[in-house]
């Protein structure tokens, strides 16, 4: 397949010229899926090629008539915690393994309205709790760059599908880095929008004050095209807000919205400490490239950032324990049919059978930090630390165009390497949780290939200023000049 059409923007241009190319493109994607999905295992539910081809007929007609939407012909993979009407949505949990949603999430309605075709529902850590996609109740997803390694998580299936050319782009969700971590580990681009920019209606809740849906694509422009479509006020989510739009345009002419003299901040705490040597050296090389292209790099300190990880985990677990109280097996999901027992025993049996180990741990710890006697010391204190984190980060962002850091402090770990020790697993979220605590947008872009493995940088921007964040990300992407990257596993197809 022609490399030009691997990106969403390239595909759009090609389809504008030749609408019937969509059939050839679908054949190509399914050929790749047939060849690699057995190894990568990105999807929990994959739609049949016949179903997709049938939907394509309608899209091709619209393209010919010149009334097709902005995502016409894009084959999008959707994370399995975003509900899709009539299409099984499991959250990678046994408790929802046969759940067929009776409605669409707002983001799903929006991508369908713009003529995207959903190719399938992607694997994830159960209820988005994890950073490696090993916590799926069904199977782990593998990194297309090295099948012995994790793709990151929790949106690991979405990122792996895009990376392995099994989808044009994807939707993931990000509560503490779950879009950016897998994007970083698979050499794709992942964007977590400002809290509230994208509706959460139909997103199965994990930690409601931090959850956001975000796009994963092969380039900054591709994720910006999707952001244009999914962002904006939705009456069904009271926390959603108006969107300025114009994200794609900002990536086409970045300096229309950016100052000619760019200033990015480096928070020292995010580069020292737990960052592995190869990642750190690569990051410093990237900084030198930016500087030699005229971008000012300013090092500074943010001491409170060291405490963001425990604050994040306390808040996320507290909110999770409350959100996951709804799973009782009565109205939907895994069912307990034993009669004549106390109600709490019925609920407890379903939940014990239905939830995996990590989910149970987080529910238990969340109940603990909210319980009488511990609430003040843990949950309330963490919420105060969150306030300090947000104020400190906003102060830095007022003076700089963005904060830059390695997205992940490590190279993609081997399967099993992190999962056994919870603190080792949580530690790799150190650079991503800040944006969720503060509510600001952040984007991960591939910056290097080290030992044949992807390395990425993260840019955090000011809240509701995605226009300048994606513009700057496009400038950085241009300087790095690697995109779009294709892993060796699928190189023979392009």
């Amino acid at each position, binding site marked *: 397949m022609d490399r030009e059409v691997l990106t969403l923007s390239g595909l759009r241009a090609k389809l504008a010229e030749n609408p019937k190319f969509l059939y050839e493109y679908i054949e190509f994607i399914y050929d790749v899926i047939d060849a690699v999905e057995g190894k990568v295992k990105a999807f929990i539910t994959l739609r049949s090629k016949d179903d997709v081809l049938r939907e394509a007929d309608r899209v091709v007609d619209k393209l010919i008539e010149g009334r097709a939407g902005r995502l016409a012909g894009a084959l999008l993979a959707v994370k399995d915690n975003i509900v899709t009407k009539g299409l099984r949505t499991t959250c990678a949990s046994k408790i929802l393994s046969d759940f067929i949603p009776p409605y669409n999430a707002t983001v799903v309605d929006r991508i369908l309205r713009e003529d995207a075709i959903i190719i399938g529902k992607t694997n994830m850590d159960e209820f988005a709790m994890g950073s490696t996609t090993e916590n799926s109740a069904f199977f782990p997803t593998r990194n297309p760059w090295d099948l012995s390694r994790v793709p990151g998580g929790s949106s690991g299936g979405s990122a792996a599908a895009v990376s392995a050319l099994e989808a044009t782009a994807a939707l993931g969700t990000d509560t503490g880095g779950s879009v950016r971590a897998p994007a970083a580990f698979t050499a794709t681009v992942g964007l977590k929008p400002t809290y509230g920019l994208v509706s959460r209606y139909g997103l199965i809740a994990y930690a409601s004050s931090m959850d956001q849906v975000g796009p994963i694509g092969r380039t900054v422009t591709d994720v910006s095209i999707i952001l244009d479509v999914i962002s904006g006020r939705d009456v069904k989510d009271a926390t959603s807000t108006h969107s300025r739009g114009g994200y794609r345009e900002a990536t086409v002419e970045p300096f229309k919205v950016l100052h000619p003299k760019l200033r990015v901040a480096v928070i020292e705490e995010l580069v020292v400490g737990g960052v592995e040597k190869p990642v750190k050296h690569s990051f410093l090389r990237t900084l030198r490239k930016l500087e030699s292209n005229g971008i000012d790099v300013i090092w500074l300190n943010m001491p409170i950032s060291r*405490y963001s990880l425990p604050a994040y985990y306390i808040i996320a677990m507290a909110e999770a324990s409350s959100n996951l109280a709804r799973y009782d097996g009565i109205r939907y999901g895994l069912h307990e049919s034993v009669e004549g027992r106390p109600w709490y025993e019925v609920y407890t049996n379903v939940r014990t059978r239905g939830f995996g180990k990590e989910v149970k741990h987080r529910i238990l710890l969340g109940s603990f930090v909210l319980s009488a006697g511990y609430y003040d010391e843990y949950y309330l204190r963490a919420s105060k630390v969150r306030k300090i984190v947000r104020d400190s980060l906003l102060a830095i962002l007022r003076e700089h165009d963005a904060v830059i850091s390695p997205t992940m402090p490590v190279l993609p770990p081997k399967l099993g390497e992190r999962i056994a020790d919870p603190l080792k697993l949580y530690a790799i979220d150190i650079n991503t949780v800040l944006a969720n605590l503060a509510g600001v947008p952040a984007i991960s872009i591939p910056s290097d290939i080290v030992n044949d493995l992807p390395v990425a940088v993260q840019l955090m921007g000011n809240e509701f200023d995605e226009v300048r964040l994606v513009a700057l990300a496009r400038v950085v992407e241009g300087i790095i000049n690697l995109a779009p990257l294709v892993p060796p596993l699928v190189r023979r197809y392009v």
Partner: protein
Amino acid sequence: MRQEELIGWLRRIKKLALVEVGKDEEEHITKDMRKIIEFFNTLMEINVEGIEPLFMTPRKEPLTREDAPVKGMEQSEALLNAKEVINGFVKGPKTI
């Protein structure tokens, strides 16, 4: 926390959370919990006096929508995932 304290705590919390933990799992779980709670305890190093907690990021737009009726989901659709339905109601197991 000492091991006995942790196990006592776990037994109380699991009742609140409606999640069962087998006796054989207790040791493994409390080992993880101890590590995680120690990790949470690092927050005690910070002086948070006088700081207002932030439960969610502040927003500039109103939270409410216009109070106008909208058509919701059909009852039959809303009940699609229930294991048993009687006269438009979900039938649950008989409990005592």
